[in-house]
């Protein structure tokens, strides 16, 4: 069985993948025990599974784990903990930017990628960058405020 090595949140990881076409999302949520990224559609339509692959936001549900080989994956767990959230997560908490929270890890990862390249985005830029992250509860208003808050805007 092929062994795939990759880095997750700065840590080297080795994975026996009996099926190299298995999506990265399944590897993360299964053997690697990172449950933050969520299963939403398996079709790259909702953004709930968003992680960073070499700093770019991707939908882990359609990235075969083999294509993550040798690359850096960053998940929501990299940012901080409930007791010590990072700046972006803390902004979400302060704004109450979630209802059920299922879309929240994906929202935060997309926002993280945006802020890395555009530190002070406009509201329009935020809405655009997060347009692939669906929120069925309708918490977009607060997510927008949270990203603006985190960017110091």
């Amino acid at each position, binding site marked *: 069985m092929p062994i795939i090595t990759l880095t997750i949140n700065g840590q080297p990881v*080795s994975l026996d993948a009996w099926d190299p076409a298995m999506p990265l999302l399944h590897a993360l949520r299964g053997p690697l025990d990172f449950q933050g990224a969520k299963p939403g559609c398996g079709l790259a339509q909702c953004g709930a599974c968003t992680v960073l692959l070499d700093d770019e936001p991707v939908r882990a549900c359609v990235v075969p784990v083999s294509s993550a080989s040798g690359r850096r994956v960053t998940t929501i767990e990299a940012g901080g903990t*409930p007791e010590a959230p990072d700046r972006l997560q803390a902004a979400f908490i302060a704004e109450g930017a979630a209802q059920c929270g299922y879309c929240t890890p994906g929202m935060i990862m997309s926002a993280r990628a945006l802020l890395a390249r555009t530190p002070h985005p406009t509201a329009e830029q935020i809405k655009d960058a997060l347009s692939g992250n669906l929120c069925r509860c309708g918490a977009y208003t607060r997510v927008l405020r949270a990203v603006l808050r985190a960017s110091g805007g």
Partner: protein
Amino acid sequence: MTSRRELLQSLGAGLVVGFTLEAVPRAIDAQAPAAAAIGVRPVDPNQVDSFLAIHPEGAVTIYTSKVDVGTGMRVAIAQMAAEELGLPIERITVVGGDTGLCPNTGGTGGSTGLTRGGTAVRQAAATARQALLARGGLRLGRPAGELTIDGGEVRPVDGGPGLGIGALTDNGLLSLAVDPDAPLTPPGHYRVVGTSPSRPDMPAKCTGRHTYVQDLRLRGMLHARVIRPPAPGARLRSVDESSLDGIPDVRVVRIESFLAVAAPDEWAAVRAASALNATWTEVNELPGHDRLDEWVRRGVVERNQVIVNRGSPVAPADAGSSEDDARALEAVLAGAARRFSASYFWPNQSHASLGPSAAVADVREDGETTIWTSSQVTFGLRSTLARLFGLQPGRVRVIFVEGSGSYGTNGADHAAADAVLLSKTLRLPVRVQWTRQDEHAWDPKGPQQLIDLRAGVDASGRILAWDTEMWIPENRRGPRSVLAADTAGIPHESGRDAAAIFENGDPPYEADRVRVLAHWMRDTPLNTSNLRAPGKPANVFAVEGFVDEICAALGVDPLMFRVERLSDPRALEVVRRAAAAFGWQARPSPNLKARQGDLLTGRGMAYVRYKGTENYVATFMDVDVDPATGRIAVRRVVCAHDCGLVVNPDALRNQIEGAIVQTLSRALHEEITFDTARVTSVDWASYPILTFRELPEIEVILVERPEEALWGAGEAATVPVAAALGNAVFDATGVRLRRVPLTTERVKAALSTP
């Protein structure tokens, strides 16, 4: 494959294994006995100890059947308890929906979480306070009247040492009946209720550590996928298990037409579900969604029911059989100076939960069963599943674990049944995870609603008579049909329940004679359930749209027309405050000259008193309409909301904002499509919802009345949204759309129709 333990070791100390602030461990040891076996806690809703447990160090755990599905229910209930117990909110934990631990004060829905669940907890806490003061008084040698309870301590008002409440119980128990007369803290003395402590689930949700039902793992469990029939009622003909060659360690379960695969490795189950060759019978029994309104109108009426009959000398119960009453109504309509009629339609819609439903079940050899589910009604589910699968209810424990937002009854109950059937069959714990397609196709739907309206108005604009007729699928007694039981050939009596879809079919405005007549239909193509504010966004889309049509015909300002016909001061308050914040210009609709570049602009409003007796909500909005594409852009929404006492204003605002966004989505984009066999809108491309780009500016005005009773607020703000949108589009374009969703195709077609 690397074991989890080996993997953790290879990662070293740097790996953070997440734990949530919730009491739900992600990894549950199926071999160990349940954390608190059934029978350890009292669950009689007449006993204080059923609702709260006081720990030795003075922290309190609250137990309630009401669950938090992302609404903030748990912080609001904690606040209500904290107020009565004089305890800082950080020391209160709320456990919801565990049938083994919680008293049953009803399921979650119908905006009853705080009105029933919260008030029950509050009364238990007030009873506890009374008892703690009495006990503290005995120990301190002071009359209870000289004592206060604050910060977890009973102590004299005039100073001196006190006693921790944890020391005033008998091993955590008070052994008291709930006293319905135990005094509650009066509004003027609120310290916690009416403030906005942050929701305790927020930090975990924002750091990826919150455990959802989709995340649960039991040691020794199998992951399962159920393979659905290609159409409801299709029977399984053959299964070729050799099609699974090469996929490790997969089991196939077939019980008549119930077909599933299960494996210790989830990806194997996913691969197997896709690879398994199965053949089914063909069924084409659905009418298709196109022209569903006509299908409804032609349908068989099971019975007629007069829902409202104001201004008639005949009582509503008699009106159905009173020919004179009906004739009198027709005479008033016929004799009116101006007569109006219109027909509105609302299609099937889905809860469209972002996270497809999941459940874990562990049915043991001896019948002891544990089910982890995001069902909003765990006690009802326990009864249904016990009966269906031959289990003793007393030995079934249903534990609520949050899923993604459910907004009523989504696929969660079905997923739980799938898991129980599989666990019972395989004699192992089983986790069932629905796919996106499963959730969209098979969740019970919001019902289709056809609404005809007629009104007669005199020369001065007085409404002489108003008649609403609605064609809606009949609700039937009994739990809803269960997919697993249907396909597995397990006979079960089932009902139909889309909840109170007949409410708010009457105008809240002064009118001499108002009748609402429901035609309860025998048939409905798709299974239905309660979808947020059942039936009411549709009914008010019709009623408030029709009021606007009357205003336009009379050439009067829609706001003024409504204000002149409302007398309830609370109604007028929300309407006026929202209008003022919005900046409403008094004039008739439409205003076809208003432009923003090439875009047509308009404004609309709607008002409702939820269920006729609860929250007052007024909603105003600005839209742009692009005549070239038919695209509607909502610019700004202002909503004023009065639900009496507000427990947590920030959590309430969050709910109202979400309700507005969600219902704009339903009004602009959502319609279940189905052909003669099956639902065809099975992903986000075929069932689009509102995206971030479409987010309008939203202003929420809370009218707080702490001296009034509280009403629940999870639903009411959804109700005027579609109507305000339709009215704004009319104002901008002069075109009246009477059917949602207001898609670009429909808008374009309407604009190009002369």
